């Protein structure tokens, strides 16, 4: 009788307590190693850094026995590491193990101050270099876009939520509320028309409008951050209304 009770209890514990996502963590670690081998720490710095941050988060969650979140985080880390590896492989100027072109001389803090009087380029050299490298795209910010969170569209020079947009915000609110450990960043974007800095402020207003709506729908404010990219990160390169309407959006990334 006692044994049966103990077995029952053990069964309950096992069911209620998912296992550590060992397989996913190992797969992510393998992807990180592949990215390192391809020279990603030097040649695809932003992407590799994102992957590393996601990996650290995975270990933290795993330690805290947040196994569901740890599993998702490991999968994201693996994806980011793969992006970093591809980026690094594309970057033909970069030789694995050497520091990339990214470091300026004597730069304090961010290592990005580049003194004038260094190597200068002719326009023809710049064009030739571009032909050689053709840098690809990767994540600029941290976090990753997930299918469950759809972008919200806007009208020209407008940050108000249309009834249509509000429906998407509601669906996104449900998705977020169903995943209590997830934090999201809302990215505001504009189309290419108008002025860069005004568009940066407009994108910020769009991200803010979506955040406010989510708060009204019951999403905790401290689970959301906002950032604006203005017109700088279009999803469509089309210079017409079809492209513009696609680019006027607030996007969600999971952190």
């Amino acid at each position: 009788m006692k044994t049966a009770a103990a077995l029952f209890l053990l069964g309950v514990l096992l069911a209620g307590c998912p296992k550590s996502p060992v397989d996913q963590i190992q797969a992510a670690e393998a992807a990180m190693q592949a990215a390192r081998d391809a020279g990603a720490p030097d040649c695809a710095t932003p992407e590799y850094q994102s992957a590393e941050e996601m990996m650290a988060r995975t270990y933290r969650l795993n330690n805290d026995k947040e196994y569901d979140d740890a599993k998702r985080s490991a999968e994201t880390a693996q994806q980011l590491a793969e992006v970093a590896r591809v980026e690094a492989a594309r970057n033909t100027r970069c030789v694995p193990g050497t520091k990339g072109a990214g470091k300026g001389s004597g730069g304090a803090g961010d290592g990005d101050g580049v003194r004038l009087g260094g190597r200068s380029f002719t326009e023809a050299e710049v064009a030739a270099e571009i032909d050689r490298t053709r840098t690809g795209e990767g994540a600029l910010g941290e976090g990753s876009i997930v299918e469950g969170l759809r972008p919200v569209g806007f009208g020209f020079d407008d940050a108000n939520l249309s009834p249509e947009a509000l429906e998407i915000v509601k669906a996104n609110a449900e998705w977020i509320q169903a995943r209590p450990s997830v934090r999201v960043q809302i990215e505001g974007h504009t189309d290419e028309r108008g002025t860069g800095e005004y568009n940066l402020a407009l994108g910020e207003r769009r991200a803010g409008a979506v955040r406010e709506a989510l708060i009204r729908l019951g999403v905790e404010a401290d689970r959301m951050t906002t950032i604006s990219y203005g017109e700088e990160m279009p999803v469509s390169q089309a210079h017409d209304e079809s492209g513009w309407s696609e680019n006027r959006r607030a996007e969600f990334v999971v952190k």
Partner: protein
Amino acid sequence: MKRWLILILLGSFAATAEAQEKVIIDISNATARKVSVAVPPLLTGTGGDPKEAARSAELLRKDLDFSGVFRTVDTAAWERQAQGDSFEAPQYKLWKMTGADSLVRGRLSRQGKGWLLELGYFDPIQEKMILGKQYQVAGDVAPAVHAFANELMEFITGRKGPFNSRIAFEYRKPETNRKDLWVMDLDGSDLQPVTRNNMLNLAPSWSPDGKLLAYTSYKRRNPDLFLMDVVNGSDEAISTRNGSNTGAAFSHDGQYVAATLSFEGNSEIYLLNRKGDVVQRVTRNGAIDVQPTFSPDGTKIAFTSDRLGNPQIFVANVDGTDVRRVTLEGRYNSSPAWSPTGEWIAYFNRDDNHIWLVRPDGSERKRLTASAGSHEDPSWSPDGRYVVFSSNRRGNFDLWAIDSITGTETQVTSLPGDERNPAWGRYFNR
């Protein structure tokens, strides 16, 4: 900054007061006829290099055509007949046959490891030199040639030319969503990146001494404000507040930076000191307030605001009082740039995609650009006569410059990808 102090002005040749009076032209008149000028390849003195001599004349022709004041004439047909021409006594009658009103003759000689460059501006009718300069050059002759073009502009118009100045701009390589900041000399030389993080780096602005660049970068995953010293390469974050930290503009005394910050929940304009502490909040309005630009006396700020429903240009005192709308027409006006002379505010009119000029009190306005395509992001030359802007008339965005008096336009960059948001800096030597 390898070009500081390598150029020594040795002296000027005599120019008679009587000749000076004759060549002054009315520069305020847009329809004034351009002064035609013959600029044959420079003569070579002892050890002079004919290739450098030809290149010097080529650089000078480009500057003079850029100026809007001069029009160079083709001299090729006459050059062969100019054997035996000398710097001291040009064959005035021969050069007059080119149809030019005036002549620039020069001589390039070897001097030690460098050059001696002599340049003169001549009147072929009166048969005399009007302006003459000698330069001792250690390295590249280009800065000396541009210095002469500046002198000549000042002699003719009363205002120094824009040459030997530097332009910073946002550069997006093709098929990327990243921008680094690049810097070049007005003549296209010394082209190089000053940020190399391959993230987003935006909205450069020069300090009055031309040593610092204020800019916005996403390198810490947020639009933050940085100050980079392009002389020693140091780079520091001055505002990393929550939200956006962007659109910096230096005051003309270099003490303050006006910037757009949104840490209080909405984009507002603030005055910061060079460490990034808020000295003064300028705007207080629920609308978007961006793109501050100082008046030359530092007492006023022009900016873009949509407080009346759509973006327009406003002017306020630096303490935020006395806010006035200066663009009264159109549905979308932005990117104000206050000229260093204080006469005009240049701005982008999105209704017709042109650069316009408006008086700071809104009393008068006129369209500056006239070509096809969009003309955006105006920035004034240090002398206050020219405006550099980005234009997509050839497909992608390139930088162009226009003479605000005659409308003469010159293409400044033609890189693949987009060059945007130019900031025209100060002179880098004198």
